[in-house]
């Protein structure tokens, strides 16, 4: 009896505590207003501007410049550290030139960021107010961090020659590290605002009212996948833009020395871009997998709905990227006369890359007439239909990556011969690894593409990626041992490349820019008529999903503005270096 009384009393206390908690929770909810419900009249129309296109273009320009200025300090720091470790001044000079190019872009990034804020305030005031109410602390922190980034960047750049040699160089490297840390945190904050609109968290799912924890709002479902994707993509993108700068300078160089310098700079930039490009499809795969996990509906809208045809466009762009990278490497083989041993293989690599591109390019659903549908027996071809789905796409991208790596491997050995006694056996093992890896990737693609249900089709992805990783890592390990103390037979002559190779670098930068614009549109567009998915509806007159052609025109307009500014910056730097040389 006594025990049961205590139990009842404990139960009563617990219930009371729960009730108090519930009241507190209710009060907390009441503290914060719900997400506003808007009508078309709540969106100011000013001066005939199409507010959606204006905000779209400004946001895209801000993103391109921000990606560039965030990426450059990452590899500048690495190159500077390599220069310090190897005591090779060339690396230090190149790192300095890289950061110099990004300085002009930094101020334009800030201008675009300011313009974006004003555009949102003017054209989407209620959305901006709602987001500000949720992210007030992180937005304030962002402003302070922006000052910290500016300060560290200016000290890093202007103090480059002042902080040279010995301990001072360590101080300089530390400033570079701080710069990168602050820049990355800035990007993480901005990513949280973007991903919140896709996978809102920390708000009441019914009303959108803030629940009190800003960390929950920041740490939403898609935050980390986007963080990883953007860091990797930024590096690849930064490399491609710097590559375009080197190409511009190479084409304008009159002296052999300058051509050699900018050829080397272009080559290094291309390696950085490829270094980012190779893991990028996998980071993208993780992001899309998480989109499906968060909302299958959103995932299907992305891959199987109104946006599905955009992925054919993406295939064209990725194809352009891989072909440019490979073409540049093949042209670069001409720097050494030793390349004659390998040039006969190029046509096979080219054929494989093109075949992979065609597989990626194959749509799943075909646009057919009734007669064609009857002849085909349905919208999907029995054998070619599976080329339109994920296992085939994964197979294509993995083989494309392996072929690009093969081009790089051949490029690395054009000027030398391995002298170790087991060189022939080593090459045979490498060939077997390549063949085994490609064979496994094709087997997995065919098995999952033709013989499994939809729910299991993506199961090929991880073993296929693992096969690619094994091929790359094993080849690099064997190469590093096999070419230790290798004999140089025909030295690389920097600057001895045809001008058309430099246009491959430009194609890389231009394609990357357009691809980022297109994928940015898709990421944002899959919310459809929602400012914040399922929480705050877009009721403006522009709350429709545009056709691919319309989106492509807006992306092109933005990309042309971006490239015009970038080429103008290159041109300015040319004038400034001519003036310096004259002095």
């Amino acid at each position, binding site marked *: 009896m006594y025990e049961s009384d205590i139990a009842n009393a404990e139960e009563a206390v617990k219930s009371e505590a729960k009730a108090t908690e519930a009241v507190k929770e209710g009060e907390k909810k009441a503290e914060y207003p719900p997400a506003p419900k808007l009508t078309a009249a709540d969106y100011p129309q000013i001066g005939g501007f199409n507010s959606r296109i204006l905000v779209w273009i400004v946001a895209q320009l801000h993103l391109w410049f921000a990606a560039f200025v965030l990426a450059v300090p990452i590899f500048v720091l690495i190159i500077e550290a390599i220069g310090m470790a190897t005591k090779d001044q060339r690396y230090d000079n190149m790192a300095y030139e890289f950061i110099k190019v990004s300085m002009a872009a930094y101020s334009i990034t800030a201008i675009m960021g300011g313009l974006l804020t004003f555009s949102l305030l003017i054209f989407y005031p209620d959305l901006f107010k709602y987001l500000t109410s949720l992210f007030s602390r992180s937005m304030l922190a962002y402003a302070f961090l922006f000052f910290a980034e500016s300060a560290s960047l200016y000290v890093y750049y202007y103090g480059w020659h002042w902080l040279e040699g010995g301990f001072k160089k360590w101080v300089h490297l530390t400033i570079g590290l701080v710069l990168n840390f602050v820049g990355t945190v800035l990007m993480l904050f901005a990513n949280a605002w973007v991903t919140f609109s896709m996978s809102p968290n920390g708000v009441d799912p019914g009303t959108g009212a803030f629940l009190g924890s800003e960390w929950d709002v920041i740490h939403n479902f898609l935050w980390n996948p986007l963080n990883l994707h953007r860091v990797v993509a930024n590096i690849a993108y930064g490399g491609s833009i710097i590559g375009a700068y080197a190409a511009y300078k190479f084409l304008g160089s009159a002296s052999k020395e300058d051509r050699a310098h900018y050829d080397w700079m272009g080559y290094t930039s291309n390696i950085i871009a490829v270094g980012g490009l190779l893991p990028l499809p996998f980071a993208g795969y993780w992001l899309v997998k998480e989109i499906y996990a968060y909302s299958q509906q959103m995932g299907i809208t992305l891959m199987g709905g109104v946006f599905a045809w955009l992925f054919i466009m993406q295939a064209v762009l990725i194809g352009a990227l891989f072909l440019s990278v490979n073409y540049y490497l093949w042209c670069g083989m001409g720097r050494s006369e030793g390349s004659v041993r390998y040039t006969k293989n190029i046509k096979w690599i080219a054929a494989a890359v093109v075949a992979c591109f065609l597989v990626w390019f194959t749509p799943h659903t075909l646009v057919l007439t009734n007669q064609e549908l009857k002849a085909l027996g349905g*919208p999907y071809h029995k054998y070619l239909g599976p080329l339109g789905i994920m296992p085939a796409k994964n197979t294509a991208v993995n083989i494309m990556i392996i072929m690009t790596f093969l081009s790089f491997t051949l490029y690395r050995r054009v000027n030398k011969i391995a002298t170790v006694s087991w060189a022939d056996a080593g090459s045979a093992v490498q060939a077997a690894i390549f063949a085994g890896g490609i064979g496994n990737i094709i087997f997995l693609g065919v098995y999952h593409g033709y013989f499994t249900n939809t729910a299991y089709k993506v199961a090929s992805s991880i073993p296929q990626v693992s096969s690619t990783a094994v091929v790359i890592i094993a080849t690099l390990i064997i190469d590093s041992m096999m070419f230790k103390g290798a004999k140089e037979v025909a030295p690389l002559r920097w600057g001895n490349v045809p001008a058309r190779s430099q246009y491959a670098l430009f194609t890389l930068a231009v394609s990357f820019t357009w691809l980022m614009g297109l994928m940015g549109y898709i990421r944002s567009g899959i919310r459809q008529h929602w400012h914040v998915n399922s929480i705050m509806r877009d009721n403006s007159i522009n709350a429709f999903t545009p056709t691919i052609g319309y989106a492509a025109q807006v992306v092109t307009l933005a990309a042309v503005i971006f490239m015009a500014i970038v080429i103008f910056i290159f041109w300015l730097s040319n004038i400034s270096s001519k003036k310096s040389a004259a002095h």
Partner: protein
Amino acid sequence: MKIFLKIVFFCILVFSGFVGFANFGIPQVKSAPPPTEEKLDLGNMTMDQFIALGDKVFNGKGTCTLCHNNVGKRAPMLDGAGEEAVANRAPLRLKDPRYKGKATTPEEYLRESMKTPSAFVVAGFGSDNDTKSPMPVVTQGSIGLSDAEVDAVIAFLQNKSGVEVTVKIPVGAPPSEKAEEAKPAEPAKTPEEVIVKFGCGACHKIGKEEGAIGPDLTHVGKSKNESYLRRAVLDPNADIAKNCPGGAPCVPGMMPPDFGAKMTGSEFEMLVQYLVKSK
């Protein structure tokens, strides 16, 4: 300067290639306009109309067929025939040892499966050992069906399965907040606007629309006269076309039968005249 211009020209050339392909190389898929809230006149609705509403919600606003279709097989089929039909399976689900819901009748089970999708997860379609369903709660978020719309979907599924329709038309249900806010849509001014407004392109190839479920209407005026076309809009099940895209026979009941009630007189006339002239 020469190099500067050469590079600008090269960049423009590459961009033109991309934008040209995006505009002329791939089909221009036009998405449906954002859904609008419709005021349901439940008091004057017959059961057939209520079932037709369920059909419309199932294939439209509810986005059910995004996953419950025969192509992707991401989710079990619901509106097929025999055992495939969910209304036929419902009594078995209630007896299944893995069932952890509160429903006691098949109708309640269907309602529960839309509002609490993880109450029972069909083997092979869930995560965490088929205990967690990837399906969203249809009364929340971007789908946001009303209780009446959920009931209409149940009526549609029961009718499709051939079992008795047990669900009742909610009478006197208070109009939803959203419905009160909804303003009547502006009448369309051109036949193209009529086609977009009533979503004809979701199923038919017509004008700039590329629907591939119902008959191609691009040249319908060549083979059908005006009175046939009037009847086809007002009473779509009166004449069923033999062949739909893919060579499959067209299915009766696919086209909503209530366009006559929804269109204004001028919209209806504009559409009919447009179809007559589509030669």
